[in-house]
């Protein structure tokens, strides 16, 4: 392809949805339901371009490119922003545009009749723009900007039905919780910029190696930067301990959950670590933090999925768990494996969410205890949902099988068997809770009076497309190592090497875990040989702990939220009583002082003056008495005076 055509093409990918956003936000009222077609047209073209570039890269026709422009000027230095296209970006472009396209198609039916229909499409489009910007960025700053913007649209979409308090609460919680992670990310960026003086990924990749070799940057510094940046990923990808927002985020419309909280935004954290892998491979401690956080999150979230009854919450915990899987893969050096799982997961998890949406749309409830037997009335939904369940459980042949096996192989090959076993146990749990969900929803007899119906075509077609992708995506990518051609970090990744490098042991164990999990669910929820209620009763404390999500929300309420609010109120009181008190106090003192002075002036100073006058006056009056005008009196006084003087002289001689 002609080189000077590539930049316009690349820019067009986010620009078209941006255009759709502008049209829908400003003319949404006028065009009404046509808003959907505006968004759909835009994303379709973006999708085709992405696909074109993607296959071009696979075929080796296209090359990695970068474009930059000046954004900020500090004088001698400045910050440049830019976009790039490489294998990693191309994969993400395809994932994002595919899911986005299907979700927008699906929403035509799902959001039908919503009073804010055009607004919904505007937000979805703008979310897509930000997400595309995030994966196109060739530097940390543009990535961070897009990162915050996807967070904003996630906030707006979670709280889309803001009349409901739980929805607006969930949006707020998502924004603030991820913001906590972003503080670390932001600090990491500042540190990175201070140390290396650039945000550009390519330059940083070279600088890290060069500075490390010359000794001007220490491994400790890289560890710190790596961990700080990872904080951002912990927030966005809902890793422990910042996972709390994702289950609540299910308050948003289901298509939103599929697009943002399953396939794209939550995967951004994983993408971030992959994109900046050049830091992590040189930072062993940061790498371990990544690995253990991921592994712990994977099993921890899976355990909560075992007992949840809300269909979307089960999927949310599952998403957290699978994200943990990806993060774990990166942490053990499985760069390709992590990104591979991200890709397959995007398809089957979006399918699961859209399927759940179809179930909710058709049955009017989210509680799986009220469902049962829906499969008869919702055939397409059931079959596609089953495919997704098989895929996520890691049944051979389905896409999830390939990627999960690569993740486990990477863990196994890295030599960290502890993490490997956590991964395998999680795989078992995943298979179990997914089929628990499946059986409770679609099989058996209806447990309540719900008149379920299959969803319209606009909703089932995306399901079918995603079902096909959930089957073939894995196999296609494994064939001819096409995925590794695009997404490959290099020999530095310790766990690198793909599925065949792992032993048969890994493969067999992974299949065993899946089969065991499915079988157990089959016995408990299909054949009902084992009563879940009985188990729950037997293990009441554990069940309670899991159902209450380990009381982490309550814990955060006590140790963060209440103290923060309390501190705010306390400081405000302090401000009023002490700081302003001092001001008002000094004002009061001044007034008091002036009053006292006034008093002093009146009583003492004026008193003295008046007193002097009074004394003179009275003295005069008194002396006046002496002036009698009689000579004999005067002589008497004179003689008396003389007498007194003589007397004094005699006494004091």
């Amino acid at each position, binding site marked *: 392809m002609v080189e000077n055509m590539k930049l316009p093409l690349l820019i067009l990918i986010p620009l078209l949805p941006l255009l759709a956003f502008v049209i829908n936000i400003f003319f949404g009222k006028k065009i009404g339901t046509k808003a959907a077609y505006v968004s759909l047209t835009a994303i379709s073209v973006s999708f085709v371009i992405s696909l074109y570039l993607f296959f071009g890269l696979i075929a080796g026709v296209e090359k990695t490119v970068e474009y930059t422009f000046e*954004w900020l000027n500090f004088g001698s230095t*400045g910050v440049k922003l830019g976009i790039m296209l490489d294998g990693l970006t191309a994969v993400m472009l395809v994932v994002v545009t595919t899911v986005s396209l299907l979700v927008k198609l699906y929403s035509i039916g799902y959001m039908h009749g919503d009073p804010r229909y055009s607004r919904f499409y505007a937000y979805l489009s703008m979310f897509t723009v930000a997400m595309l910007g995030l994966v196109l960025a060739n530097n940390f700053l543009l990535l961070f*900007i897009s990162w915050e913007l996807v967070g904003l649209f996630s906030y707006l979409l979670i709280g889309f039905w803001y009349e409901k*308090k739980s929805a607006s609460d969930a949006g707020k919680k998502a924004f*603030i919780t991820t913001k906590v992670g972003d503080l670390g990310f932001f600090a990491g960026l500042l540190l990175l*910029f201070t140390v290396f003086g650039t945000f550009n990924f390519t330059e940083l990749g070279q600088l890290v190696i060069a500075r490390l070799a010359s000794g001007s940057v220490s491994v400790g510094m890289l560890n710190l930067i790596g961990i700080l940046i990872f904080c951002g990923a912990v927030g966005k990808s809902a890793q422990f301990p910042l996972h709390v927002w994702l289950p609540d985020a299910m308050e948003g419309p289901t298509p939103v959950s599929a697009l943002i909280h399953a396939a794209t935004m939550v995967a951004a954290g994983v993408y971030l670590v992959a994109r900046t892998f050049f830091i992590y491979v040189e930072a062993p401690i940061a790498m371990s933090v990544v690995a253990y956080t991921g592994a712990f999150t994977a099993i921890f979230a899976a355990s909560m999925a075992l007992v949840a009854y809300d269909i979307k919450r089960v999927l949310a915990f599952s998403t957290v768990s699978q994200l943990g899987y990806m993060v774990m893969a990166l942490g053990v050096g499985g760069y390709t494996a992590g990104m591979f799982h991200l890709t397959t997961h995007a398809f089957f998890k979006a399918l699961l969410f859209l399927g759940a949406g179809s179930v909710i749309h058709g049955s009017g409830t989210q509680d799986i205890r009220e469902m049962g037997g829906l499969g008869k009335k919702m055939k397409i939904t059931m079959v596609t949902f089953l495919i997704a369940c098989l895929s996520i459980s890691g049944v051979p042949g389905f896409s999830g099988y390939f990627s999960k096996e690569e993740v486990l192989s990477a863990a196994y090959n890295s030599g960290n068997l502890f993490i490997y076993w956590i991964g395998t146990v999680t795989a078992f749990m995943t298979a179990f809770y997914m089929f628990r969900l499946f059986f409770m929803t679609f099989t058996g007899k209806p447990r309540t009076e719900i008149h379920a119906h299959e969803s319209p075509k606009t909703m089932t077609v995306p399901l079918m497309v995603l079902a096909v992708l959930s089957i073939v995506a894995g196999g296609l990518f494994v064939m001819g190592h096409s995925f590794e051609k695009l997404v490959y970090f290099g020999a530095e990744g310790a766990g690198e090497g793909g599925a065949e490098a792992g032993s048969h042991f890994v493969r067999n164990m992974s299949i065993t875990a899946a089969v065991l999990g499915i079988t157990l669910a089959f016995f408990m929820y299909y054949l009902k040989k084992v009563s879940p209620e009985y188990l729950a009763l037997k293990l009441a404390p554990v069940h309670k702990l899991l159902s209450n999500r380990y009381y982490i929300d309550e814990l955060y309420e006590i140790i963060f939220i209440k103290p923060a609010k309390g501190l705010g109120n306390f*400081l405000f009181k302090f401000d009023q009583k002490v*700081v302003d008190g001092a001001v008002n106090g000094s004002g009061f003192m001044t007034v008091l002082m002036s009053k006292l002075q006034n008093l002093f002036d009146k009583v003492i100073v004026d008193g003295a003056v008046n007193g002097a006058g009074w004394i003179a006056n009275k003295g005069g009056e008194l002396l006046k008495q002496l002036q009698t005008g009689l000579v004999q009196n005067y002589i008497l006084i004179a003689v008396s005076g003389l007498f007194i003087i003589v007397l004094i002289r005699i006494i004091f001689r």
Partner: protein
Amino acid sequence: MPILTLITFLPLLGAILILFAPKGKDNLVRWTSAVVTFLTMVLGFYVFFTFNRNTADLQFVERAAWIPSFGISYFMGLDGLSMAMLVLTPFLSFLAAVYSFNIKERVKEYFFFFLLLEAGMIGVFVALDFFLFYIFWELTLVPMYFLIGIWGGPRKEYAAIKFFLYTLFGSVVMLLGILALYLTSPITAANPTHTFDIIELSKSHGLMPGWHQYLVYAALFLGFAVKVPIFPFHTWLPDAHVEAPTAVSVILAGVLLKMGTYGLLRISYTILPEAAKYFAIPLLILAFINIVYGAFVAMAQKDLKKMIAYSSVNHMGYCLLGIAAMSTVGLNGAILQMVTHGIITGALFFLVGVIYDRAHTRDIEGFGGLMNKMPVYSAIMILTCLGSLGLPGLAGFVSEFMCFSGAFSSTINTNVFRIFTGLSIAGLVITAAYFLIMIQKVFMGPLNPKWKDLPDMTAREYVSIVPLIVLMVLLGILPVIASGISVKSVDALVMLLGVKI
């Protein structure tokens, strides 16, 4: 053409013109003010576009002997430190004047004081002679006092007097500092008298002995600290803001506070570089307190306007952070932050005014569900709040990023700076929290039936607010249009400070 004189005295001329308006011709007064402030704004933009960004030299200089026997001259000029504020001040003044069309009582006096205030503010940013500077500085006080005291809310007298006395106290101490500088300026054969010339003083005082610099710095600092305001001298601000009429709040937050930070840069930093370096760490800590303390106290507010007022304390903290850093990025960031805070918080105060004019309450708890009733207003308000909490893509992010980045890489004392900058970042979460809590309570949830008849924004309000929103978005996406203005002057300042880069 003496453009700086023109731009400074045009509002004053307008003020005098208004005095001649016949009684009862309120609309004539309003339109005269609008035209005058508009022309001043056009001049401001003209200067902005003809300003040469590639030099640190003073531009548009005007100089005339005034009282030679005391070394006082009429000296005006512009450089990268003041350019941004010179364009922002008339811009905000015009928007505020348009917004003030809703003033019904004593219209003539209101606009007289308003224009007087504008003249004073512009004068502060262009004056380069201390005597002149001080006159303009004090000139802003009096009209502000009346504007709050006459057209303010229920506790207007208290707020006005508090504002007046507090800032007067600050400026009197500042005057002592100025006199100290004046009296210690060298007398040579070429300069037979002491001088009030700020540029001249910056050449001679860098070499003053340390303790002398520290003392004078402290005196000047008090004057500026009250204006910014820096903790613990900030308590006049919430009272003044809550009581002031909307347009005056906008001016107060948008321009008056920046006189403090501008003073720090223009006077304290250029004349007393040694002291500035000596006090960098204390300033850093105060910046940190402003950020975190301001954010926490803002979170505790029930009154919308008071919340925004405390958010100003919070946001001026970012500005101080950049100033304390003394690095190129930090200082450029601080100057940009002055502008972006002026735009964003200015817009927020307008927006609070919009809702107060309709509902006659600002109690955050008393609203709910306004999004459905006033969609345009809600969208604009939420967007502006997002700008204020530093959302990337909007102007606030750029300057906050620069301030943080500058402070983080400060070479004054790297570790201390990194620790306090790192701690200050925590303020960002609190800022996000209080804005989101407010948005939820006011705009989301079911509509409070009390407000079922609230109309959306009017044309007058659009004229005042939309330009700010446009600028907020534009600067957020393409900050390069503004960030280059201060570069050369900041480079020169950093050289003068002699901070190792």
